[in-house]
């Protein structure tokens, strides 16, 4: 009988422990803090202490420099003059050598959510007006404005953003942006797009 009491007690205790599955809001402790926490400044660590000490840390690359293996900087600024002049710029990549599966992958990750997997301007964020986005994304294979847009202008718009679209200069490298432009132009031709669109990649 004593055993029974013990058994009930343990069971009741187990029940109590199982019942309190509270949310863990605290990090917890570590064995050896000097081995767990970095002495050096890690990525995303606060630099406030440095600033207090008079050290100013700027994560941007030195102006005018080009990273090894990267493409030369895009020459035009984000203004109306730059937008007009962007039409002069040609795709510096060899379009025939672009891996279109990779270009499609980058397009689907970064552009597809608004402009749609079929480039018809009906991605999951718009869904024909049922999605949360408040403006219709451009139909890249049906809208004459997109069909007639020069590849340089397209690159300019992807880099800096246009109307409600944000700029992707911080998310995609120049090479990736040009690959996306080539991919869109290719899809426009496949969908029977305008002659101007066909002329662009055919140049190579």
């Amino acid at each position, binding site marked *: 009988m*004593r055993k029974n009491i013990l058994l009930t007690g343990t069971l009741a205790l187990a029940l109590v422990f199982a019942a309190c599955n509270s949310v*863990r809001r605290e990090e*917890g402790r570590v064995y050896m803090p000097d081995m767990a926490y970095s002495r050096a400044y890690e990525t995303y660590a606060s630099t406030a202490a440095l600033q207090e000490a008079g050290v100013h840390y700027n994560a941007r690359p030195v102006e005018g420099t080009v990273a090894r293996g990267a493409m030369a900087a895009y020459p035009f600024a984000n203004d109306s003059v730059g937008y007009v002049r962007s039409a002069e710029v040609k795709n510096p990549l060899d379009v025939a050598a672009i891996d279109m599966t990779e270009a499609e992958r980058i397009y689907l*990750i970064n552009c597809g959510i608004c402009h749609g997997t079929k480039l018809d301007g009906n991605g999951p964020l718009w869904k024909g007006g049922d999605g*949360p986005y408040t*403006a219709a994304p451009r139909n890249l294979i049906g809208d004459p404005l997109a069909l007639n847009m020069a590849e340089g202008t397209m690159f300019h718009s992807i880099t800096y953003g246009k109307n409600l679209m*944000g*700029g992707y200069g911080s998310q995609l490298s120049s090479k990736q942006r040009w690959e996306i432009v080539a991919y869109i132009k290719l899809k426009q031709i496949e969908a029977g797009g305008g002659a101007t669109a066909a002329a662009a990649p055919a140049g190579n």
Partner: protein
Amino acid sequence: MMSQKAALKHLSTLLFSLLILSVSFSRAQDAAAGKAVFMSKCASCHNVLKKATGPALAGLEERHKWADHKELLAWINNPAAYMAKDPYTQGLKAEYGSMMTAFPDVTLQDVSNVVAYVNEAAKPAPVPAAGAGDSAQGSDNQNSVLFGVISLLLGVIALILMQVNSNLKKLSDQAEGVTLPEGIPFWRNKTNIAILSIVFFVFGGYMVAKGAIGLGRQKDYQPVQPIYYSHKVHAGINQINCLYCHGSAEQSKHAAIPSVNTCMNCHKAIQAYEKGPKLFDEEGNEIDGTAEIQKLYAYAGFDPNNPNKWDPSMAKPIEWIKIHNLPDHVYFSHAQHVTAGKVQCQSCHGEIQAMGEVKQVSDLSMGWCINCHRETKVQFNYDSTKGNKFYSIYEKFHNDIKSGKMDSVTVKDIGGLECQKCHY
């Protein structure tokens, strides 16, 4: 004769209902045709209720001279010419920073249809019946309380019954005249002490070992973030790819926390949380999604009433709390796992697209890492579309040695002269 009459009657009813149907259709067509025109021509820049690239269209007939659709048509067909002699539209250009695109092929009928659609869409939508989510949440809580009360009651009843049983036994023994030696109280009973101490050591040992193993591990860590950002809404419902925001996971040691401008790519337009399900934090409090978006605007320095005046360079970083921490002596690279290893985000981070608040699913212990490294098959370069090309150089060496082009592989060939091999 009778059947003919009946048929005629049927026919007339049919015709009549068709007539009614056609009347109601022709009325609806106005707005429906307007919606089609609006979606294909206007929606890129205009929203019915919200400011976008251009002004919100709701109530446009009360503004300027737009009640006269001919004026509206003249403006839409040729904005530049119309604006030249009209100060109101000049003011619009100054406010929004750009002039409207001309739509020379839009007709007066189109304009009327679009206005009909706008008027219809501007009407407040009926409020859907609320409370379904609430009751589900509530019943869940009630259930656990109920179970607790029931088990407590059962426990008390069991204790009482045992006590009654022992008292009855004592009474019956007395009645039968059996005299038992004075019992030892149960806390001095050696068997009980032995059992209790064994249980204590087993249970205590288990808790100590568990606590010690848990030191430095953060499984289930789920801190309160500065903004209630729901991965369920973004990655789940709206199907945004993980790499849209955390793109550097492919190239860098870190899967970047997106900067404010990445949030603003979409939230410049999406200024309110309206179309998704109700949001709750882990404590069960309801979250106002729109208020959370406002917090983002405070960091970004963005004024929703003046979307075109936003200066991204004035944004302040959001200090998100890092959840997945490894000790300083462990090196982990996202690029190696995501690009070369082709590991899915969910393999380590769990069903992140279903999480309102993110929590650490894996314990990130050494055993956990080792286990995955034991079981995961390397995806070699099968062909040009599948697998990684990370080990292709070894395949080349293998073939070169086979064909006699090389006789041995030196450390230099496998990257031994890279500066970082020693100077990292």
